[in-house]
């Protein structure tokens, strides 16, 4: 590695509400920082070049690819990972609950990225059509479900988040 590769910086990132201070090599990706330094292995790595969506996390509330950000770039920012979606008492986020009910996951590899992507999407678009949901998750590859159950779960979660309709 070049000289740049050896340097590290001390950074402070707020991850799921708690401030984490750590030394980060300057070229460490945010995804490796979350998984290896902070041992938050819920964020998955499929392709490591932006295509599969598995590594998607929320940075200051916006969905971003953690494999395409450096850990040092998260210094001073808020990161939410899959580990931070459920309420502190452990009750699931409406999207997580709906994914369970509709079998929106099988192996679960893609799920953390889908959920973070959809959390942001439902904030911007609280009453989406199935077509809009499909476009929103077009950057998340799932090789198990065939997506239909994910779309159904999202429609139900959107309803729950809007506060209309009954959750079974």
């Amino acid at each position, binding site marked *: 590695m070049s000289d*740049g590769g050896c340097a590290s910086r001390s950074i402070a990132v707020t991850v799921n509400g708690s401030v984490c201070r750590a030394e980060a090599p300057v070229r460490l990706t945010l995804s490796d920082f979350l998984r290896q330094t902070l041992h938050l292995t819920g964020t998955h790595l499929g392709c490591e*070049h*932006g295509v599969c969506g598995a590594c998607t996390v929320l940075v200051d509330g916006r969905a971003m690819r953690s494999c395409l950000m450096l850990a040092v770039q998260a210094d001073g920012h808020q990161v939410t990972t899959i580990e931070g979606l459920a309420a502190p008492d452990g009750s699931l986020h409406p999207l997580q609950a709906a994914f369970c009910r509709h079998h929106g996951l099988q192996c679960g590899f893609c799920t953390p990225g889908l959920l973070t992507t959809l959390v942001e999407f439902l904030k911007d678009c609280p009453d989406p059509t199935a077509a809009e949901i499909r476009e929103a998750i*077009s*950057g998340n590859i799932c090789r198990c479900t065939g997506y239909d159950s994910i779309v159904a779960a999202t429609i139900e979660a959107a309803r729950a988040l809007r506060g209309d309709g009954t959750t079974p």
Partner: protein
Amino acid sequence: MLAGGQSLIPAMALRLARPAHLVDINGVVGFDRLEPSESGVRIGPCVRHAALGAEAVPGPLGRLLSLARRHIAHAPIRARGTFCGSLANADAASEWCLVAVALGATVTLRSQGRVRQLAMAEFLLGAMTTALEPDELLVEAHLPALPAGTRVGFHEYARRAGDFAEVMALAAYELRDGLVSDPRIALGAVEGRARRLPAAEAALAGQRPHDAAFRRAAEAAAAEITPADDAEDGRLLARAAVARALSAAA
């Protein structure tokens, strides 16, 4: 130079790029400036794809930006990648390169002790090739406004939503006394770099905006290009995309 990192970090991950030094410009104060005005919009080097649309930029220019933006990758990539980074990266299938070329954008390049402005046509030299010198930073892009009443259309075909395009076409024109005036027709992803298509524009100018005129312009487009890959496929794609962009604008 690391801007949004949505092209450079993948290239590094695949070991296609191995830069000895990386300078992250994301922290530079003022680089995220986005200034719409009567004359157009000034775009600083840290303005993200997601920030450029009708909600930020008024008039037909804003509408056109929204139309193009939704074809760029996926929301998490649009939240991070930058407009200026797309121009600097100069992918043949870059939506922003197509928009910038079609509208006659200017870019400001800066190095220590030197500032220069280039028209997009002088800046964009070919696929992944620009006039940027190694010590230069693209510090601003300026997109000129489109006159009120300009009709705009954008058509793109990609295998899957968010993939890089196989073809994309942009159309913009005004109507004077019911006839097309000042048409802009530009094509991306088929040749090495995006460009306006003068023969197609000439075929459309002064015509009534209806399907027959759009078809003739699309034929002219297909005839005047030199596709980078398969010529027959390229012409087929160009013909269809130009016709659809024109109908979308109508």
